[in-house]
């Protein structure tokens, strides 16, 4: 990993300490609720923004972490493909989660 990645891993890890505690607190509440109950909570700005921040920081952190795993264990041409697949998977997952959260929040 280069310096940029290492700094981003540190930055997101620090951000994720409070965000994870907030996320777990939110999910304890949400996992007890039904469809309408979950949607009602996520129309409020604080839980919605908490969730958006957790998803963003979490998926950036996850993508960087998997990058270092790939670089450690995979060599040659497969490494490039694995790195590209990792970035694409993380980007699609982040967009899907952010889109779904915003859709609940605004409808």
């Amino acid at each position, binding site marked *: 990993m280069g310096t940029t990645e290492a700094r981003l891993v540190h930055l997101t890890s620090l951000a994720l300490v409070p965000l994870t505690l907030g996320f777990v607190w939110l999910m304890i509440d949400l996992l007890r609720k039904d469809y309408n109950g979950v949607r009602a909570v996520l129309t409020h700005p604080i839980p919605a923004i908490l969730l958006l921040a957790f*998803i963003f920081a979490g998926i950036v952190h*996850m993508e960087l972490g998997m990058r270092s795993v790939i670089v450690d264990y995979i060599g040659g041409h497969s490494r490039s493909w694995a790195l590209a697949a990792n970035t694409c998977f993380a980007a699609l997952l982040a967009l899907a989660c952010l889109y*779904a959260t915003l859709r609940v929040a605004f409808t």
Partner: protein
Amino acid sequence: MASSDALPGPRRPRPLSPHLSIYRPTMTMAMSIAHRISGVALYVGVLLLAWFLIAASADASSFAVFSGFISSFVGLIALFLVTWALFHHLVGGLRHILWDAGYGLDAPLRDQMAWATLIGGFALTILVWIIGLTVR
């Protein structure tokens, strides 16, 4: 002086890390491996969050499919393991932040911190599940 990598011709295969088999196992090593395993587990576990959010954004019947899975035996086991991976990785991350800042690298403390990761991660998981299952 030119590096051999810069010379034309076929590239030497680059070394891959790590060579786990030549080290005597230690607690810090075990927790380093556990940090990576829990991280990779969360990479998969986040799909549960994606499913939850997509189902909640779709319609009541999609959400019912998610609810049915997460309250099933397999779903609860998966949720428990993801909770454990999350807290293990969180506490392990705090340990790495301290180590990166230069604290806790001496012989007795670094092993105590490795044990604290294992115990703390599991304790927080149990605490959250007790709150989740009892507090209304």
